[in-house]
């Protein structure tokens, strides 16, 4: 098989016709010569002419060959063939080594298919990653002098130890040997981009791409979905397009991507196993739509690239993953807090009798609670673990028993975090006020200002020491960037745009807390349908209630004992929380899923909580009550908002590895320098960026699961961050080999697990560049031509 590096020079082959043309055009017709006798000439000439014809033909052929060989040499031809037929050509070998944390799974070939008693974490011996490194080294062992290597570790972010192809095999081996398992999913797109760019520029006979990975089924499903749209067969552009998508971001888009979560032990297999033959959408595309191939990929395979897929696992492995943690500070036994653990069974077999443990994190983790659970195949279950006591350290750890993949058996949770909470105070616009309210306000002498009292209550010193309060109008909620706070307070906000409501809903879903205070601008019907119906559907506003009688007012009494909103208040249910007088309230109803935290003395709900939303059924602007001037107003607001913020910490806090970390610390309240301490004790100095009275500390990425701590020079912990692995990476099902073959398209070879990367397999590497021998041939032919043209040979 021939190929050319400079194919344009092949046009020079046309010049090979020049000697023939010159010969034809310069040939004269032999003149006729009458002669006395050709008796002697006959004997002489027949031999001579025959020799001359032969000589002329040889010269012509030589000249044609010389020009053609030179043109061929300039086009840099390469010849590929079997190992036995030609010598070996130079190769550029690119290795995409998957070091995402799924590669930390215990190698079934080592364990014999049984779950190891104690997990092997970190990609050590016996893991798929160790096998992958071994395979990569095997590839490197087949490289010879003159070969070049490209190495990329495909966990996000992709790591390229060398920015150019490296000829030093020792360096490549060293990088592979000392490579570590990452705790992030793989980013094959970025890895391919960088590697293909380097391969494109490589000037060697062979170009090879080895993808050493566990080839998870989860990735393949999305590829297959696109694949079925193609009528034209394998198309790497489509594949790369699929790879280009953020793998996890796609999981919520497709109907079959994520199995629906069920209750405890009642998981649903869903469509997660629908690879290849599920739903009549066979991979052959016979049932596929007639749509054209979506070719959004901008990556191109270099000409002549050989692709080798090197899977390191060929059987599905059982694995349990902690999918998510939910902390309810007021839940559980005696309101000490409750952690809800969502556990996903990534395997094909049901799991029963397994134990999940809750521990107080620390140098020596302290067990707090444990519970057995069952979970169906490919399903999720939720297990609730109640804290016997409130967490002292504010850091909790949840552990599952050992299985094939250890990295997703642990998750961390920060329940309480030092530091200033950010509050977005959304004030209603100026509108008409009721006469009665105005009259009440005039009797109390309070200033009618929507946010004045709340702002003063949350930030009494005005320097952000207790809460960092940002005041905005309702329109600010349209911009999601404004919702990067811990709590949002809506104070007498009349109407919100649909986009604002949608942003609020997302804010709540990702763990943000919302405190709603009513007021004159509130339209109950609108609130029920457009706001509460979206963000707190278990709460319903019924009607506005004024004072029960002339000169009588309602009081505020706690309804949920031990609720963090009243923690420290020396009151018991039934006692008045304060002496504040509530002249005007809104009757509300807490349906299933919501709970009444406090009520007015007449059992009318006053504080109603529904999953991150607390509704205060009166106003906080002094128009409907004088609560804002009571002694209990400030502590209750602090406790309530801190509670909502801690919920946010519990829900939103477990960031995944690779996420950035950011903390706000009161300026001057710490000693410089400040360092970020990672879970393994590594320290990273951080410089603050001052923003008003607070300083912002930020790191762009994280690399390890566990608890990061922001520590000042005095050793005081300024903030904590729980960082966990992406649970989706815990799916240890394997993509079918034939499917891989089809997806990677023409010419890709899928190696069997453990199959040696032998010479025969790489026989495409054997070949040679022909320009040197061709130039040598040109010189030799020139010498022969000179000898033949000027010498006496054949003359």
């Amino acid at each position, binding site marked *: 098989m021939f190929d050319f590096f400079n194919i344009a020079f092949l046009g020079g082959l046309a010049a090979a016709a020049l000697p023939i043309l010159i010969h034809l055009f310069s040939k*004269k017709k*032999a*003149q*006729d*010569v*009458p*002669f*006395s*006798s*050709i*008796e*002697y*000439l*006959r004997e*002489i*000439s*027949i031999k*001579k*002419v025959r*020799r*001359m014809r032969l000589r002329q033909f040889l010269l012509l052929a030589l000249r044609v060959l010389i020009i053609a060989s030179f043109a061929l040499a300039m086009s840099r031809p390469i010849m590929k063939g079997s190992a036995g037929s030609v010598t070996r050509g130079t190769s550029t070998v690119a290795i995409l080594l998957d070091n995402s944390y799924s590669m930390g799974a215990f190698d079934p070939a080592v364990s014999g298919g049984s779950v190891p008693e104690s997990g092997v974490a970190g990609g050590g011996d016996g893991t798929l990653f160790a096998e992958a490194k071994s395979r990569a080294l095997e590839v490197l062992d087949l490289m010879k002098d003159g070969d070049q290597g490209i190495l990329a570790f495909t966990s996000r972010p992709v790591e390229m130890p060398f920015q150019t192809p490296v000829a030093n095999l020792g360096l490549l081996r060293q990088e592979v040997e000392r490579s570590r398992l990452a705790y992030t999913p793989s980013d094959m797109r970025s890895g391919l981009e960088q590697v293909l760019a380097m391969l494109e520029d490589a000037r060697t006979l062979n170009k090879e791409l080895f993808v050493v990975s566990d080839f998870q089924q989860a990735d393949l499903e999305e590829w297959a979905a696109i694949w079925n749209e193609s009528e034209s067969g394998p198309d790497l552009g489509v594949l790369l397009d699929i790879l280009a998508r953020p793998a996890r971001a796609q999981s919520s888009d497709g109907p079959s991507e994520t199995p629906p979560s069920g209750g405890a032990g009642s998981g649903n297999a869903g469509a997660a196993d629908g690879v290849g033959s599920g739903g009549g959408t066979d991979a052959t595309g016979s049932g596929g739509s007639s749509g054209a191939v979506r070719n959004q990929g901008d990556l191109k395979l270099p000409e002549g690239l050989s692709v080798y897929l090197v899977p390191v696992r060929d059987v599905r492995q059982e694995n349990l993953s902690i999918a998510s943690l939910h902390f309810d500070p007021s839940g559980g036994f005696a309101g000490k807090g409750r952690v809800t653990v969502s556990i996903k069974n990534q395997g094909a077999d049901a799991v029963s009798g397994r134990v999940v443990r809750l521990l107080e994190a620390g140098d020596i983790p302290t067990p707090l609670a444990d519970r057995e659970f069952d979970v169906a195949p490919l399903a999720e279950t939720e297990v609730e673990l109640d804290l016997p006591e409130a967490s002292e350290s504010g850091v909790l750890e949840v552990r599952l028993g050992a299985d094939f993949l250890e990295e997703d058996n642990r998750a961390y949770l920060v329940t309480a975090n030092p530091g200033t909470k950010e509050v977005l105070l959304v004030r209603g616009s100026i509108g008409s006020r009721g006469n009665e309210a105005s009259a009440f306000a005039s009797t109390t002498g309070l200033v009618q200002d929507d946010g004045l009292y709340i702002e003063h209550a949350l930030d009494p010193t005005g320097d952000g020491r207790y809460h960092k309060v940002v005041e905005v109008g309702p329109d600010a909620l349209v911009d999601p960037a404004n919702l990067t706070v811990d709590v949002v307070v809506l104070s007498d906000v009349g109407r919100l745009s649909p986009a604002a409501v949608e942003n609020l809903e997302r804010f709540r879903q990702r763990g943000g807390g919302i405190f709603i205070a009513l007021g004159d601008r509130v339209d109950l019907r609108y609130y029920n349908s457009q706001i509460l119906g979206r963000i707190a559907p278990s709460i319903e506003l019924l009607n506005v209630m004024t004072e029960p009688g002339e000169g009588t007012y309602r009081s505020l009494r706690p309804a949920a004992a031990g609720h963090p909103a009243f923690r420290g208040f020396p009151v018991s249910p039934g006692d008045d929380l304060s002496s504040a007088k509530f002249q005007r309230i809104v009757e509300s109803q807490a349906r299933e899923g919501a709970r009444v935290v406090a009520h007015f003395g007449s059992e009318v709900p006053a504080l109603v909580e529904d999953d991150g939303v607390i509704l205060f059924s009166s106003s906080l602007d002094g128009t409907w009550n004088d609560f804002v001037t009571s002694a209990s107003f400030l502590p209750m607001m602090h406790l309530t908002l801190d509670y909502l913020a801690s919920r946010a910490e519990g829900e939103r806090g477990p960031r995944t590895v690779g996420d950035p970390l950011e903390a706000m610390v009161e300026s001057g309240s710490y000693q410089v320098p400040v360092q970020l301490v990672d879970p393994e004790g590594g320290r990273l100095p951080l410089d603050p960026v001052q923003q008003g009275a607070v300083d912002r500390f930020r790191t762009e990425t994280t690399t390890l699961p566990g608890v990061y701590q922001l520590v000042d020079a005095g050793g005081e912990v300024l903030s904590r961050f729980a960082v966990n692995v992406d649970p989706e990476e815990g799916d240890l099902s394997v993509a079918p080999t034939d499917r891989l073959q089809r997806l990677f398209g023409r010419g890709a070879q899928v190696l069997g697990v453990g199959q040696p990367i032998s010479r025969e397999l790489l026989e495409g590497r054997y070949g040679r560049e022909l320009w040197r021998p061709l130039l040598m041939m040109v010189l030799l032919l020139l010498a022969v031509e000179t000898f033949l043209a000027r010498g006496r040979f054949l*003359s």
Partner: protein
Amino acid sequence: MASSSTKERFLDPGLVGKLQRLDLVARRVVEGFLTGLHKSPFHGFSVEFAEHRQYMPGDELRYLDWKVLAKSDRYYIKQFEEETNLRAHLLVDTSTSMLFQSEPDGVSKLRYAVQLAASIAYLMNRQNDAVGLMTFSDKIHSHLQPRSSGAHLRHLFQELEVEARRSAIRKNKGDEAPRTTAIGKCLEYLADRVQRRGLVVLLTDFWDHNEHDVARALKHFRHRRHEVVVFQIQDPAEAEFPYREESVFHDMETGEKLNVLPWEAAKEFKRRVDERTQFYQRHCGANGITFERLLTRTPYDLALLRYLEKRQRLN
């Protein structure tokens, strides 16, 4: 006495060839030749006194009449009534190969041979020798028995004129049936029929592949005690092979065509031609035959001198 320039002019084959009448050619050639001779060739070997004539330079002193000189103090030569017993046969090869002429200003081999034969005949006739003529190629075309009369000489000239015209026809691209060469056969024919001892002058280019037949025939003449003079007439191109470009050579006798690379063939061709000449030279030398190679640009005096030398030996 004719001037030397006149002599040269009439000994140059190219120049005299321009003369149309062969008798004029012969006379001019012979007269020019004789003018340069120190001795007069005109003497017999069995004579009766006929008359006196005035001495002319070149006359042999032995024929000077001393008595007349003593009486009159004048130089007279005694002239005798010659009775010649010399019978000469001119054998002219008229094969088509003899028509070859490479130089535009030169003469063909046949023209050269005809003019030379005419000159010799004229000279012999001047000496009252009997001269005959045989033209041949692969067969005998004409045969005149030797006689010494003037009429016979004219007849002989006419025969030669016919051959000379053939050369002109050829030069003018005229058609003519090709004549091949069979020298040996024709010589044998003559040798069998000429009984009386005489002189045989052969003019040919020797393009006969049966060289040994030719040699045997020549030896046959010697066997019959004839004196033989052989003139091998060659065109300069046959001796030098001056061609430079690839050409198609036409064999004038057979019509055969052959693609020839002159630069490749020249050396070998010349070697073969020389070999043939040397063969005849050796054979003639071994059998007492005078052999002379003449190029068509060779002046006639050389050929005539050879003839005279041979005639003297006969005397």
